[in-house]
Structures are given as structure tokens and as C-alpha cells.
């Protein structure tokens, strides 16, 4: 079976969210956009930017005591921020892995064997971590509430775009976040 059980996925997400909350608390993150590069560097990670014409979006490398986050800067700056957060998630949550390389598009055809199950869970965790860190629940709720109060005819697209700008994340990432937080319907 290549599919992790729902229970395993939920537990994995909780763990990732807790780790993101700890950082938000420790570093007193209160105003968006979250300064993700500084947070990564504060954890001892060096950020290596590289413009690369390939499917790779980023990597998390743990070499002895050194942590390196690689970012493909071919994508938009907002996506790069998400990549940094995602890779920081790998470094903090997946201690046993010396190297994780991420692709912009997952190779679906390679994901039906037993070993891909652990990878799936780790990707879910890194994504959950990144979303929770870049778009902290309380702060998103606070800003969304203010926007809706200020203009109760605001359209869905407008709300997503404004919040994406405030948090400096892609419109795509923000719309998933708003759905997951129950602010928007799917």
C-alpha cells in the first residue's frame, strides 16, 4: 500500500503545525509578512539560491552540523518563500534525512510503492509546516476579519489576493490556507 492512513496523516499534520507554532511563539512573529529567511538563518540554515532550468524547486541538506536550504530562483519570489519554509520544515522535522530534494511537480508515476509512503507523509508535513509558519492561523483570521468588516461585499478573489499580498505568499497558497482554516468553502 502506498497510501498512508488518514489517522497517520492527521498526526503528521499536527506535529508539523506544533513545530510551526513553536517558532511563531519563540520568535514572537506577529506581523505579516513573516520574515522566513531570517527565521531559517536563525535556526542555523544557510540559504543557497540558484537559478536552474529543471524541475527541482528546492532542497534541504544536512551535512554534519551544517544545514543548507537550496532554492531554485527561477520561480516567483513568493513561491521561493514557500520553498524556504517547506525546506526548513524538512530540516526541523525529518532529522534522519541528510538530503531531501523537492520538485515543483511531484512525479506521480513514482509514488505507488511502499517507500513512497514515508515520503508522502514527509511532504505533507513540510507543506503543513510551511503554510502554518507563513500564514499563522490567528494572524490570518485577524486580517481576514478586518477586511470583511471593512467591506462586507468583498469578493472571494479580492479577499484571497489581498491576503496573499499581505502575507507575501502565492494566491494559490493563500486560497488553500483559507479553505483549510474554514474561512472559505472549497
Amino acid at each position, binding site marked *: 500500500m502506498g497510501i498512508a492512513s488518514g489517522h497517520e496523516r492527521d498526526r503528521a499534520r499536527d506535529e508539523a503545525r506544533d513545530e510551526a507554532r513553536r517558532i511563531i511563539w519563540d*520568535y514572537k512573529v506577529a506581523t505579516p509578512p513573516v520574515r522566513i529567511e531570517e527565521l531559517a538563518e536563525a535556526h542555523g540554515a544557510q540559504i*543557497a539560491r540558484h537559478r*536552474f532550468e529543471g524541475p527541482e524547486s528546492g*532542497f534541504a541538506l544536512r551535512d554534519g552540523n551544517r544545514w543548507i536550504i*537550496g532554492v531554485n530562483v527561477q520561480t516567483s519570489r513568493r513561491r521561493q518563500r514557500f520553498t524556504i519554509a517547506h525546506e526548513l520544515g524538512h530540516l526541523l522535522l525529518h532529522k534522519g534525512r541528510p*538530503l531531501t*530534494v523537492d520538485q515543483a511537480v511531484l512525479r506521480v508515476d513514482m509514488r505507488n510503492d511502499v517507500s513512497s509512503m514515508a515520503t508522502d507523509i514527509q511532504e505533507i508535513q513540510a507543506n503543513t509546516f510551511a503554510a502554518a509558519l507563513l500564514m499563522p492561523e490567528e494572524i490570518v483570521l485577524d486580517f481576514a476579519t478586518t477586511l470583511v468588516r471593512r467591506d462586507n461585499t468583498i469578493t472571494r478573489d479580492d479577499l484571497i489576493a489581498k491576503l496573499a499580498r499581505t502575507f507575501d505568499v502565492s494566491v494559490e497558497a493563500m486560497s488553500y490556507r483559507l479553505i483549510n482554516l474554514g474561512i472559505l468553502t472549497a
Partner: protein
Amino acid sequence: MPDVVDAENDKFYRLVGSKVRSARIAAGVSQTLLAAQVGLTRSSITNIEAARQRVPLYHFVLISRALNKEISELLPENPKPDDSRVSPAIEEKLADSPATTIDFVRGAVARLRDESEVEKR
């Protein structure tokens, strides 16, 4: 200044403060005596040791002389080693990866090396 950079800065002075404190205690010198030797008040020495106050460079030099220490002995270790090569263990792990992955990881790590060389100049 961004918070996290400030945190690094604070950490640096905390380390300096604690190094000054332990060197002073090891030398059997009181805060009052050290203060008199370097032309500061006793409370400045207390604050420097506790990192509530950032020690001015000139006084730092005087403190190191008064305590008979080299300046480098009162400074934190260089926090970032500039070794940007990847260890053989990682190279081995990379060897099984697709060609684009190898290029991407090596290319990114090499850029890190270029940047640290620019900083050194």
C-alpha cells in the same frame, strides 16, 4: 533592524559579557577594581558582563589588557565556518539521484561558496 539579526547581535554581546566575567573572576579582580583600571563605573562593568550594555571597542581593549588576556580570548568563536564543500557522505547520496538533481544541488552549494568568498574580500 530585523529582530533575528538583533538576536544574533545580542547573543554576541552575551558571549563577550560572560567571557569578560569569567576572565575577571579567574584573575581575582573585582568589578570595582576593573572599572577603575579602565575608566568606567562599576555599574558599567556589571552591565557589560550581563550584556545590558554593549562594550565600546576602546574599553574592550582596555579590559583585555587589565585582565591580561588576548582580545581574541574574550571574543566568541567565529560562528560560521566558511567550508562550503559537501561531505563525501552527501556526495554518495547524491550519486543515486537524477542528473538534474545533482546539477541543482552542486550548483546551489557552489554559489554559497562564491558568496562567502565575496564576503571575505
